[in-house]
C-alpha cells in the first residue's frame, strides 16, 4: 500500500464525537481522515439539540465562543400534561460557571453545529470526505486495519466508529448487537420557525437566551416524553416514544405527535410557526445497561451514540456532550501511543467522568419506564392543581379528603408504594 492510502486514524462519522476526535488528533499533527455518509456533516442528524459547554472546553478552551450555537439556556422547564391542562415547573438560572462565567449549556441546531465543528477539524488539518458510505472494515490477523468504501480500501493505524446509534461498524467489528425494542426510543423532531421576538416573548427570555423544556404526558399513554428547545429563530419540538409500546396500539407515531402538538398549552407556544424540518431517528434510551460490553478491539474504538453514550434523567437528556467527551477520550488514548489504545480509552472515559456518570444513572430508565409516569401521574398532578385553583362559588370539598380522592381515582396505594420503591431502588 502506498503512503497516501494510509492514515494515522480513520474516523467514521462527522458528528460531534467524530469531529472532537478528529480536531484533537489533527491539532497534534496526526494524519486523520473523517468519512461522512451524509452529503455534508450534520445532514444525518436529528438530535433535539442541547450542548453542555464543558465538553467543548475539553476539546479546546474557548472554542465555544465561536461555535454555531443558538441560545444560552437560562430556563429549565418540566411540564406535565393532562388532556386539557398543563403544569410547568420553571427554573430560572443563568447558569454561569463560577470562576470562568462560561454558560452551562446552549441549544444547538445540529445541521449548523456539525458543519461548524467539521470545518474546525478541517482547519486543524483533518481531511473530511463527505457523501461516502463505509461498507466494511478491513481486517488482518484479527486486527482492524482500515475501511472499505465501495471499491476503495483505505488503511489506518486505528479506526474509530463514530457512526451513530445504529453503528454498522460496531456490528461489523462484532462488538455491538442489534438494538432490542426496549433499549431505544423512536424520536420525532420538528423545527418550527418563529420570529426571534416571538420566541423571546413566549418563553420569557432575553436576547440570546433560551429555554429547554421536558414534557411528560399526552404521548398517547405510551412510555416516552416530549421536548421543546428554543433556537435563535425556531423551536425544536418533538417526542421520543417506546417502539415496543407503540406496536401494542393502533395510533401511528405521527398521529400521536400531532395530538401532542395540538394540546392547548403546547399549541400556543408554536402557533403561527412554519415547519422547516421534520425528521425521525432512533435514540439510545437505556443508558449504561445498553452500552456494549466492550468498546474496543485491536485497531478499533467506538465513540458517541455508536457506543450508546446517552443519559436520560427525566429532567435532562445528555448525548452531544457525552459524544464529544468520548471523542476526546479516544483522541487522547491514541496520542499516548500506548500498545493498547483501547484500554487507555476506557481509562480516559473513567477519568473524564463519563463512565462513572453513566453508571450513576444506570437505573434511571427503570423510573422513566414506570407506566404510570406518562399518564396517571401527570393527570393526577393536574387534577390536584385544578382543585387548588378552582373557584366556582360553591363550598369546596375539604382539602385532605379531596386530595385523597384525587389520588385514589388515579393510582392505588399499592401502585404508589411500588413505584416509589422502584424509584428508590433505581437511584
Amino acid at each position, binding site marked *: 500500500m502506498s503512503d*497516501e*492510502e494510509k492514515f494515522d486514524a480513520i474516523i467514521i462519522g462527522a458528528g460531534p464525537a467524530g469531529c472532537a476526535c478528529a480536531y484533537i488528533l489533527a491539532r497534534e499533527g496526526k494524519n486523520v*481522515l473523517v*468519512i461522512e455518509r451524509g*452529503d*455534508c456533516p450534520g445532514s444525518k442528524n436529528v438530535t433535539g439539540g442541547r450542548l453542555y459547554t464543558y465538553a467543548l472546553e475539553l476539546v479546546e478552551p474557548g472554542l465555544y465562543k465561536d461555535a454555531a450555537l443558538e441560545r444560552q439556556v437560562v430556563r429549565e422547564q418540566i411540564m406535565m400534561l393532562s388532556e386539557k391542562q398543563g403544569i410547568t415547573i420553571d427554573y430560572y438560572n443563568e447558569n454561569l460557571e463560577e470562576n470562568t462565567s462560561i454558560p452551562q449549556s446552549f441549544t444547538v441546531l445540529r445541521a449548523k453545529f456539525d458543519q461548524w465543528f467539521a470545518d474546525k477539524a478541517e482547519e486543524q488539518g483533518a*481531511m473530511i*470526505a*463527505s*457523501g*461516502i458510505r463505509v461498507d466494511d472494515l478491513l481486517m488482518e490477523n484479527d486486527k482492524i486495519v482500515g475501511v472499505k*468504501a*465501495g*471499491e*476503495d480500501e*483505505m488503511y489506518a493505524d486505528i479506526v474509530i466508529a463514530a457512526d451513530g446509534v445504529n453503528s454498522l461498524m460496531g456490528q461489523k467489528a462484532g462488538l455491538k448487537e442489534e438494538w432490542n425494542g426496549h433499549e431505544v426510543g423512536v424520536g420525532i423532531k420538528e423545527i418550527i420557525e418563529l420570529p426571534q421576538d416571538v420566541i423571546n416573548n413566549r418563553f420569557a427570555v432575553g436576547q440570546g437566551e433560551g429555554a429547554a423544556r421536558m414534557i411528560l404526558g399526552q404521548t398517547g399513554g405510551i412510555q416516552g416524553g416530549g421536548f421543546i428547545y428554543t433556537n435563535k429563530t425556531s423551536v425544536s419540538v418533538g417526542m421520543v416514544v417506546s417502539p415496543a409500546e407503540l406496536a401494542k396500539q393502533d395510533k401511528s407515531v405521527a398521529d400521536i405527535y400531532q395530538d401532542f402538538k395540538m394540546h392547548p398549552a403546547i399549541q400556543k407556544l408554536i402557533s403561527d410557526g412554519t415547519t*422547516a424540518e421534520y425528521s425521525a431517528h432512533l435514540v439510545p434510551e437505556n443508558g449504561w445497561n445498553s452500552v456494549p460490553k466492550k468498546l474496543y478491539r485491536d485497531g478499533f474504538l467506538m465513540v458517541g451514540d455508536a457506543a450508546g453514550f446517552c443519559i436520560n434523567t427525566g429532567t435532562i437528556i445528555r448525548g452531544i456532550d457525552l459524544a464529544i467527551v468520548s471523542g476526546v477520550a479516544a483522541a487522547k488514548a491514541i496520542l499516548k501511543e500506548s500498545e493498547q489504545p483501547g484500554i487507555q480509552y476506557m481509562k480516559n472515559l473513567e477519568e473524564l467522568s463519563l463512565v462513572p456518570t453513566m453508571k450513576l444513572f444506570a437505573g434511571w430508565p427503570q423510573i422513566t419506564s414506570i407506566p404510570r409516569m406518562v399518564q396517571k401521574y401527570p393527570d393526577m398532578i393536574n387534577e390536584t392543581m385544578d382543585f387548588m385553583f378552582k373557584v366556582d362559588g360553591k363550598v369546596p370539598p375539604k382539602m385532605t379528603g379531596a386530595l385523597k380522592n384525587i389520588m385514589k381515582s388515579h393510582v392505588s396505594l399499592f401502585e404508589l408504594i411500588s413505584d416509589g420503591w422502584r424509584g428508590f431502588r433505581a437511584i
Partner: protein
Amino acid sequence: MKIIVCYKWVPDEQDIKIAADLKVDMSMAKWKISEYDKNAIEEAALQAENNAAEVTCLTFGTSKAKQSLKDALSRGPEKAYWVNDAKAENTDGFVTANILAAAIKKVGIPDLIFFGEGSEDSYGQQVGPRVAALLDIPALTFVTKTAVKDDAITTTRSIGNCTEDVTASFPAVVCMLPEINKPRIPSLKQVLKASKKPVEEIKLADLGLSDAELTVKNKVKSIQGFVMNRKNKLYQDGSSAEKVKALVSDLAKEGLA
C-alpha cells in the same frame, strides 16, 4: 486533447422556500454544483478516461464557491480555475460569458469547452453559446451524445422531436442535456485525490475586462415564486361510473386524456 468544463455554483432547490406571499427565501439553502453541469463534468471525465483528454474545470463564483472546488475536482478534472469575485452575486449570461471567455483566453483556448445546457437556477441557456461567440468558435447545443475522432467532435443534438448529428472541428463549445450520462458519485479515493489537486484563483482585475463588459444587461428587480392554481373540481353527483366518465371527459377537454 484539452477540455475545459465550466460549472455554476447554485443554491440547492430542495432548500429554497417560498413564503405565502410568494417571496423566495434562499437564505437557508445549501449550495451545490448545478446538476446539469455535473453532466458536463462527467462527459469531460469520460473523455479523460477513454481518450486521455486533459480536463480542467472553471467556475465564476463568489468566495463561497470555494467549497465547490473539491467536489468538482473529485468528479474528474485535474485542475480547477476559479474566478473569485463578489460580482457573481449579481450577474447575468452576458457578464458571466464575458468573464468565462476572458478566463479561457487567459489559460489558453482548449480543444473543447463543455457546459451544461443551462444552469439549474436561472436556466438562461446563454453562457455556452455566448462564450462560443466571444471566442469565435462553433457552439453545439442540446447535445445528448458525443464522439471524438481526430481533431473533431461529432454530437447528437436532441431538438424537438428529432435528432441531428453535427460534427465540428476543434475548438468547439458543447452544451449537454442531462440525459447524456449519469454523473458519478465520487468514490473515497477520488475525494481524497481531489484535495491534492491544484486550484488556481483568477482575479477579475487580471482579465482586463471593461466596465461595460462587466455591467449586467438584465437587471433583476425581484424574484417571486409562482402558484399553479388547481381546478379543485369534485365529482360528487351520480354513480361511480358517471363520475369517472365526467372526469375522463374533463381530462379530454384539457388535452390530458
